[in-house]
């Protein structure tokens, strides 16, 4: 089972990064909202100050006339506040001649409508209002926006600092939680791996969340352990039942065989002896069939092989090829082996030996004298046993790997060999199929995805 490294592939790490991003987004949103709110509020304050100033100067114009207005405007222009927004004043007479102040009437600003505008003045930004006074005079009052900008800048810096601290804290906390979560999931995963590899006593020893396993992983671990307890009990029961059945079935057969042996010892009649030998042979056949069925059933229910050791498939195939060469000569078969050296496979070496032996047995059994039989093993792995014998009828091809199915020819065997081939192949992640070799049959064992990937 693949182990999740501490990378983006880990759900826990992704969760931690997502939390950090959400925190960052929240901080940005908060800073932006605060900045807008403060700017709006301060602008409103500035606007009120400007309007109050205009109101006061308009009254001065009424009470003291233009001279007083000019004097007051000069005073106010000269006054520079130590804090707060710098003030701008401008007074122009009815002929639009500037009479006092540090600002003129900006173009495009309609004093007749007491229009508000925002302009650039040197390196300053100014919010102002121009208004028409008695006698056609024009009064402009403005306030610098620099204070708002400075406050916004300070706010951004402060928010950035807070955001950095919050994001780092969230990330550290998230990764710490992710590490703990990952460790617990990893422990659970390792428990599965150990159990799958045959350690039936493997149980999740993970931290159950500190409060008697009430968190989700703790509950999952408890369920896993309960499931393993149940599976272990089933596997032990299955083994005991199959062993007991084997023992209880074989024992009377052994007794029967012993009595037949005893009878043979006392018998002097050749015909009776032949019958007794035949009876003993029948007993062996029953036992052999029973063992083959048990092998098949237990292999079928065993799931994928738990043995992950690597072995040299080529070496196994070469040994079997040598073993079967003599049989081929005896049966007048033209047997050839084409084995790529160094082809390896993970799993049970003896089971794969049996798979190849069963395929060769099958070919040798059905190919008539003079036929060609070929064993091919190439990388992949891909195992092919083909012959140019009678082949398999199309109608039988799809059932050939079922138990007790065999071509209507020899009377040897139980018809379980190819069924076992398919099960052993499946346990090693391989598929088994047969195709027409035109003439003859071609049995192919290869990876399930070999057809789609074009692997050989």
């Amino acid at each position, binding site marked *: 089972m693949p182990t999740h490294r501490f990378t983006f592939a880990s759900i826990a790490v992704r969760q931690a990064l997502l939390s950090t991003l959400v925190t960052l987004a929240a901080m940005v949103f908060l800073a932006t909202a605060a900045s807008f709110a403060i700017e709006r509020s301060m602008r409103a304050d500035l606007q009120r100050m400007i309007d109050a100033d205009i109101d006061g100067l308009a009254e001065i114009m009424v009470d003291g006339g233009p001279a007083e207005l000019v004097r007051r405007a000069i005073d106010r222009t000269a006054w520079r506040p130590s804090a707060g927004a710098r003030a701008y004043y401008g007074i122009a007479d009815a002929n639009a001649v500037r009479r006092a102040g540090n600002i003129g009437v900006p173009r495009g600003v309609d004093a007749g409508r007491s229009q508000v505008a925002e302009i650039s003045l040197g390196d300053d930004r100014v919010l102002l209002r121009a208004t028409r006074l008695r006698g056609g005079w024009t009064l402009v009052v403005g306030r610098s926006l620099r204070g708002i900008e400075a406050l916004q800048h300070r706010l951004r810096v402060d928010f950035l600092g807070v955001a950095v601290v919050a994001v780092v804290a969230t990330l550290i906390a998230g990764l710490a939680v992710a590490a703990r979560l990952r460790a617990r999931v990893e422990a659970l995963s390792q428990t599965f791996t150990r159990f799958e590899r045959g350690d039936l006593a493997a149980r999740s020893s993970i931290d159950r969340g500190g409060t008697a396993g009430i968190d989700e992983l703790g509950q999952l671990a408890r369920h896993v352990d309960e499931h393993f307890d149940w599976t272990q009990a089933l596997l032990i029961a299955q083994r005991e039942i199959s*062993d007991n059945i*084997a*023992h209880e079935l*074989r*024992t009377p*057969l*052994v*007794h029967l*065989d*012993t009595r037949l*042996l*005893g009878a043979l010892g006392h018998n002097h009649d050749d015909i009776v002896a032949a019958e007794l030998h035949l009876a*003993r042979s029948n*007993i*062996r056949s029953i*036992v052999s069939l029973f*063992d083959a069925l*048990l*092998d098949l059933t*237990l292999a079928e229910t065993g799931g994928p092989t738990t043995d992950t050791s690597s072995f040299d498939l080529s070496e196994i195939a070469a*040994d079997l090829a*040598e*073993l*079967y060469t*003599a*049989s081929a*000569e*005896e049966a007048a078969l033209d047997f050839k082996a084409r084995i790529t050296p160094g082809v390896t496979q993970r799993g049970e070496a*003896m089971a794969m*030996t*049996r798979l190849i*032996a*069963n395929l*060769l*047995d099958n070919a*040798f*059994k059905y190919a008539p004298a003079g036929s060609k039989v070929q064993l091919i093993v190439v990388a992949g792995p891909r195992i092919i046993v083909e012959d140019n014998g009678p082949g398999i009828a199309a109608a039988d091809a799809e059932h050939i790997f079922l138990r007790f199915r065999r071509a209507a020819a020899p009377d*040897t*065997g139980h018809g379980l*060999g190819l069924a076992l081939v398919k099960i052993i192949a499946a346990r090693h992640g391989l598929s088994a199929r047969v195709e027409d070799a035109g003439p003859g049959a071609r049995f192919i064992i290869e990876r399930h995805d070999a057809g789609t990937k074009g692997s050989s």
Partner: protein
Amino acid sequence: MQILLIEDDALTADAVTAILAAEGIAVEWAVTAEIGLARTGDTAIDVIVVDWMLPGMSGIDAVARLRRAGIEKPVLMLSALGRAEHRVEGLDGGVDDYLAKPFEPAELVARLRALYRRTTVQARQPVLIHGDIELHVHARTALRAGKHLGLSPKEFELLKYLMENAGEIVTREMLLRNVWKLNFDPQTNIIDVNLVRLRRKLEDGFACCCLETVRGSGYRLTAP
């Protein structure tokens, strides 16, 4: 040779005793693993035959205890559990050989003799000699009457095993397990034809035979 038989089934025990007695092999019978274990220290015992499924302690547990106690006497497991998986488990569990019931009397005798010989004969001799056949283990060459026999690596192993058990019956299953390292029986007659091939190489050009087929049992390398 003296055998300690640990077997709870009286009929099987009687049959084994009778088969071995006919071959001049003495048998001491223990009905449980506990009783058998108490007798394993007896120096007169050469080979132990133990059943797997026994009342109380199982045969496989008894062998484990035996090995833990440092007793290295050869053990043959004689069991009704005959699947390849059981053979592997038995051999991994410390037994030296495994024979499933029902068995051929000749096979039982052959296996016991092979186990007994393993304890008494120098199995790692560099040169094995049987009559006019010589087998040089390190050089991996075989000669008959000084004439080189062109054997394949497997044929060499086959002849070596036969020579190590010269004069005794060697069964097909013994050959499958010890020469070809297979713990299952292929359905075809591959052992017989390989023996025929070896016999041809051993006997071609010589007047006398040396590899005898024991009908229904196996093969025996006889004095040439």
